[in-house]
């Protein structure tokens, strides 16, 4: 089986609002699949349908060959979830939280204990295993929830905004764990707002907006598709009137970023020539000159705007 998740025409409405509108995609086995979208785009609703928490109005989702509607328990047995708004049981200790998860997945007690010990050590929580989770910081709670999700050795791991609101160190630890478990064979499906995170982690990305998939591809291909978002970034030894640079042929847009000016174009080489001519004419020295491919954030904003019809 090469496909871990197959989604066909998945749809969910809440009253008159269509949260997810006939979406289709596939996630390959052993892949890290990123799900990007602005707030309210339908990311969490999609994850809730894929994990059997919400029933779709239409469509189907197959997880490792099991239809989440027809065989929910079989599908849920091989997945694990770190929901966006999840919390550990505050009145249970870290250890009790993990043991509970083992019991809910039918993991034999001895195995649960061994895995819990290993995971708590990996995430630096072992020393605090007998403390109630209510005394844990947000980062520690998130690590504990991730430990609970990994305790069951899932084939597919769903993470909804797993690093949101975490400090740099905790976020990095979680990203490293995602990479490590993916290398060991876990398929990862995760939603994030963090473009840099998606760019670094994901094999492929889907961008969802207003409940519809706007694009699916590798981060690199998504960037390359948006040729008009290529840019040239320049800085001179003296401030220059931005209006003059806007008149350079083939410049579609420009932005001042600190002491640099970014000129958007689909003809970078021609803009570079024009900039060197301009500098010579105005007796300016070029301090730095770089051509830039569009960032994933540029692509994301463009796709979201296009989808909105701006």
């Amino acid at each position: 089986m090469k496909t871990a998740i197959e989604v066909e025409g998945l749809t969910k409405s809440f009253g008159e609002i269509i949260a997810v509108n006939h979406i289709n995609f596939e996630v390959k086995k052993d892949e890290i699949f990123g799900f990007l979208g602005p707030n309210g785009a339908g990311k969490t609703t999609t994850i809730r349908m894929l994990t059997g928490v919400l029933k779709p109005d239409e469509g189907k989702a197959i997880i490792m060959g099991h239809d989440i509607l027809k065989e929910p328990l079989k599908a849920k047995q091989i997945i694990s979830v770190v929901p966006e708004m999840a919390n550990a049981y505050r009145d249970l200790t870290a250890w009790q939280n993990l043991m509970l998860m083992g019991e809910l997945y039918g993991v034999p007690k001895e195995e649960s204990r061994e895995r819990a010990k290993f995971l708590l050590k990996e995430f630096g929580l072992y020393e605090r295993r007998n403390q109630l989770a209510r005394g844990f910081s947000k980062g520690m709670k998130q690590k504990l929830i991730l430990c609970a999700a990994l305790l069951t050795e899932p084939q597919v791991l769903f993470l909804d905004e797993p690093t949101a609101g975490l400090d740099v160190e905790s976020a990095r630890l979680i990203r490293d764990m995602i990479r490590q478990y993916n290398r060991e064979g876990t398929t990862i499906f995760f939603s994030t707002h963090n473009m840099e995170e998606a760019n670094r982690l994901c094999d492929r990305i889907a961008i969802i907006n207003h409940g519809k998939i706007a694009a699916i591809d590798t981060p690199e291909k998504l960037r390359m598709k948006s040729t008009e978002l290529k840019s040239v970034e320049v800085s001179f030894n003296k401030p220059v009137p931005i209006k003059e640079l806007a008149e350079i042929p083939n410049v579609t847009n420009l932005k001042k970023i600190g002491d640099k000016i970014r000129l958007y174009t689909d003809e970078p080489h021609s803009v570079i020539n024009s900039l060197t001519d301009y500098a010579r004419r105005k007796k300016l020295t070029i301090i730095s000159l770089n051509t830039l491919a569009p960032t994933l954030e540029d692509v994301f904003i463009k796709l979201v705007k296009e989808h909105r019809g701006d």
Partner: protein
Amino acid sequence: MTRLMVNNFFEQLKRSVGVAKKDLRIYYKRGPVIIFGLIMPFFLFLSFFIGRNMPIERLFIGLLGMAIFFSSMSIGPAIIPFEASSRTLERLMSTPIAVWALFLGDVIASFLYGLLISIVPLIIGLVLGINIIQPLILSLGMVLAALCFSSFGILLSAYPPTDVPSTAMMISNLVKFPLVFISGVFIPISQMQDWGKIIASASFSPLTYFTDLVSYCTQETSYYSIPVDFIALIGFTLLFLTAAIKIHEKTLPKRLS
């Protein structure tokens, strides 16, 4: 095929036990559980019985009935709203536990809590010299009643799908208090002879059948026959449990939005 189904059933049952353990660890000491499950019924009992010259057997029926009814129904209504408000419900719903097993776990927790608490008035009764004529029937009755009232508690938390525990507790109290007054806790059903309508409504209360059983076990007098009491308690348990699972199944996703 049948073997696989039986295996799956027992596998799910084990998960119910996991849920029950979690519930007992978390919820027995919650404020609303202690207030609505122990303190309030205790004072209600005192306010009704103090100063009235009643035989001790009558007091015992009232105390045991109140204790098992309120304590078995105290944890149930609180669990799901607490899970929703403390944001643990979504994770629970994504685990491979069947909805029936999840709620059976909650019922088991409420049942054990109710049974444990009701041992206290039983001991008090024995210390005060109550003669339990039919100990086996009383024990069986207590087990069945605790199971029945626990299922009732879970049913009462099914609708409306609130994530505010005190709202769920308030709604459950709205149902519980009228039932106490018509179920032979304070006044034996046999003395309600002229109140035809009340007796008719009493037969719709599961508590009636338990107090009738306790009356039989301590005074050898009962309004209904013992098999009727048992069948009614079993029937109510099955009805409450099935209804609770069905309604919760429909309302669970609404608690997340």
